[in-house]
């Protein structure tokens, strides 16, 4: 396969944008025009008030770490991360100003030094290469460094 055929894709459509010349990649949200509730990802209806008038918005790049843990055992198949050697990684919910809490991998951090309420920012990174050789990206959060 030549580099021309290699594609970049999101691990799940509608949750985030891929990095481009203009933008590092950001999270997509949907806001209900009836009740104001905000959801992570593109959705055409509101799971709170059953409204069908949704506005696609860009979610904030930054939020606060609500809780966290470290996965010391490798996740089961069909996990696409590096199994051998396995490197423990952190995950947690990040609360965004829009009022939504999102579960995410936590990267670029000392996994032994995480604390609740840390300032976090989103990054969109390649996570694995699929069978067709395409680069598959996911969103992650990392601590904001001063």
């Amino acid at each position: 396969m030549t580099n021309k055929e290699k594609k970049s894709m999101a691990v799940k459509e509608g949750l985030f944008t891929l990095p481009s010349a203009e933008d590092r990649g950001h999270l997509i949200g949907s806001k209900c025009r009836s009740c104001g509730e905000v959801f992570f990802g593109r959705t055409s209806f509101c799971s709170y008030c059953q409204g069908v008038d949704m506005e696609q918005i860009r979610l904030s790049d930054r939020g606060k770490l609500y809780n966290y843990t470290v996965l010391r055992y490798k996740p089961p198949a069909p996990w696409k991360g590096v199994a051998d050697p396995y490197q423990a990684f952190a995950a947690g919910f990040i609360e965004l100003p829009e009022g939504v809490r999102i579960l995410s991998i936590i990267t670029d951090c000392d996994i032994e030094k995480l604390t609740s309420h840390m300032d976090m920012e989103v990054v969109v990174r390649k996570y694995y290469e699929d069978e067709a050789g395409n680069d598959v990206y996911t969103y992650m959060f990392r601590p904001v460094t001063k």
Partner: protein
Amino acid sequence: MREVVVSGVGLHKLGRFDGKSYVEMACETIRTALKDANVSWKEIQAAYCSRMYLPPTTGVRVCAAMGLTGIPVWDIESACASGGSALRSGFMAIAGGFYDTVLVFGVEKMPRGFMSPENIYDLWQCYVGLSVNPMYFALEARAHMDKYGSTAKHFAKVSVKNHKHGALNPYAMYQKECTLDEVLNSRIVCDPLHLLELCAPNEGSAALVLTTRKLAVKRNTKPITVCTSVVKTPLYPPPLFPPAYQTSARIQSLPLTTLAARQAYEESGIGPEDLDMVELQDVAAPSEIFYSEELELCPPGEGCRLLDEGVTEIGGRLPINASGGLLSNGEPIGASGLRQVVEVTWQMRGEAGRRQVEGAKVGLSHVVGAGPNCGVVILKK
């Protein structure tokens, strides 16, 4: 609505039985329950089969092995709370006058290791590793530690207590006590949860015969009343539980377990202060602390105090998981929720052997599954 009673129960030992098929395990357990209920297979009018990892139509296959009698047989699945849903279904059928005698049974043979995530999570969650059940229990634990100051030591104490109880239970997979040090030194799976603070997937089977009081007495058995059997899903927003990858910080509602418990207390006229024993979903050690609060056995944030004061061990005012809970029994999904009800039944009858809660007359069982969904049952002597 008619009063519903449990007139017979059966439980297969929990563990690993590589040579034994699920059909064999279930039939053996069903025969025990039928004998206990003084009822023949032919008198069963409907069967409810709780299972998750076994194939579709597990219920019919088991009933075919028992003997085809033309009765309706349903498989019922609600992830880890399947037993609660199956019980509710059987309960409704008798209470509503549709049948007089039904069988509710659960059976499971689970693969070893982390539960296969594709049944529970979206594929993309599996691909990026956000598909590990203990991760959620660990995150809940962290939130509870931040909010109420619960500690790793408290979680370890739950494990010590439940293993101590499990050592008294001949049906439990793990019948060995452990020390606080052993728990805290066992490998960390998802911080702050240690291996000895997580239940193991395994195999087992449980069966109950539900009928009317009149018939139970006529058959010369000692019925235990099912005061109520409740199943609930949460109110918005999705709780921090598999398989959610988002939730709301704007809207808050009562915890799922509290919703289910309050409905159970209201319908039965029995309050948490009336309970003599509780079997709850200690899928992870800290879960027992949150659930004891959400079942309103104590105010929010005081689950640790209940544990510290010895209230929840056998001999205390309100033993929790006298059977050893999921931590000692393991969690064979389809069977687990019904194993709890069998335990409560035995406790009400005074048949719980060395783990008997003295004078137990009223008991509650609580089961939670991915989704999430929750089942609560209250039984009374």
